[in-house]
């Protein structure tokens, strides 16, 4: 299924946090990306995780006001999926890296190199993944779901005051992880 909007529209919708566009990206690009993982002995869960990471990388890039995509979104996602999968396998110590597939893909996908903000977003994402499950859930409820503290307290079995303080501590931990300690 092809993206129903032009590239400019797509970028605009990403910046506006339009959820539908993410679904469209899945429908257009998940299958070739997942093929890399599934044919290499990965599971469907692995493929979903890898694709989520690859999408995240793309969405982060799109936040940059100077971002424009000239061509080959498919190539970018494909290559990103491969890199993420290789990294995952290396971390699991099951895999010798082969770059031969990377070598078959064009070096230039028409997508600019990483900007400073993008680097920070990716680092922040890594730090979030390293945070405790409680912090991850609390921050998600606070900043994505946008629940009020009373509801968060109810959902996590905390007091409202505890939610505020816990959130503050989680954010400090993230700051420390980012290398900026105050």
């Amino acid at each position, binding site marked *: 299924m092809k993206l129903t909007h032009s590239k400019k529209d797509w970028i605009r919708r990403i910046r506006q946090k339009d959820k539908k566009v993410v*679904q469209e990206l899945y429908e257009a690009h998940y299958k070739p990306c997942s093929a890399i993982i599934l044919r290499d002995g990965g599971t469907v869960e692995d493929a979903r995780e890898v694709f989520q990471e690859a999408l995240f990388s793309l969405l982060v890039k799109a936040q940059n006001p100077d971002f424009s995509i000239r061509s080959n979104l498919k190539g970018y996602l494909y290559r990103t999926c491969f890199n993420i999968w290789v990294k995952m396998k290396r971390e699991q110590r099951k895999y010798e890296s082969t770059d031969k597939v990377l070598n078959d893909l064009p070096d230039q996908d028409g997508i600019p190199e990483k900007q400073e903000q993008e680097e920070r977003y990716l680092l922040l994402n890594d730090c979030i993944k390293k945070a405790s499950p409680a912090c991850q859930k609390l921050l998600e409820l606070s900043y994505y779901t946008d629940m009020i503290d009373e509801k968060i307290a109810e959902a996590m079995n905390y007091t409202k005051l505890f939610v505020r303080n816990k959130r503050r501590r989680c954010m400090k931990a993230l700051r420390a992880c980012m290398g900026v300690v105050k």
Partner: protein
Amino acid sequence: MEEKYNYDDIERFAKGKLDEEELADFKQKIQQDQELKEEADFYGEVVDVFRLKGMIKDADAELDKAGFFNTAAPSPTKSNPLKPLGRRILAYAATISILLIATAFLYSNLTYSNAALASLDAAELGLDLDDTGMRSGEAAADAFADGIASLSAADYAAASRFFETITPENEAYTQAQLYLAFAHYKQNNYADAAESAQKATPALDAATRQKAEWVLLNSLLRINRVNEFQELLAQIAANNDHRYQEAAKELEQNLNSPWRSLVF
């Protein structure tokens, strides 16, 4: 311990929930306080990251509910898209094609090769192979008769030996060369056949001369002496009095046939 900043305001700023007046006020503060700006920026980034992650997580969950990940998984090996019947039809078509091509090659080589086009027989040449069995005692005449007898018995090697003994001084020499050319031809010695046929072409009688030319022509075709062959062929085909004019024209036609392209 009291916090340095009002983190409620920072969070509301990061989420875009400050009203106009509050926003203007907050912006002024961050302009004057670098540390506050850094905190606000950091919270803004965290909110942004969670929103992006959340969008992906929601889309993933929606698609999972719709069974997208079950259908999207590629099969480990590519299966042949052709159904068994289609494969069978393809196999039959391929076999028939191969047979047709092979037949075409066979036909063209049996009918249009140089060997096929340049075949000679005694009857075609009008060679008199009737051996009376009588010998005159005169060496050349007897040799000629023995040569004829050998040709009649299809002993072409023996025939060659007999005809080679007849020297140019003998009046039967050119005729002997014609028969010798024929004997060489039948032994597939086309170069020798051409040489002997050439020696027979000065014959005084038209019949011997024309037969020798025909043997020469066919020999030249067999040994691929193209220029000489084409010159002689054109000559014979243009000569209305030549006994082999029709045969020459037919040979010309066959040489120009598209079937020749399949000859190897």
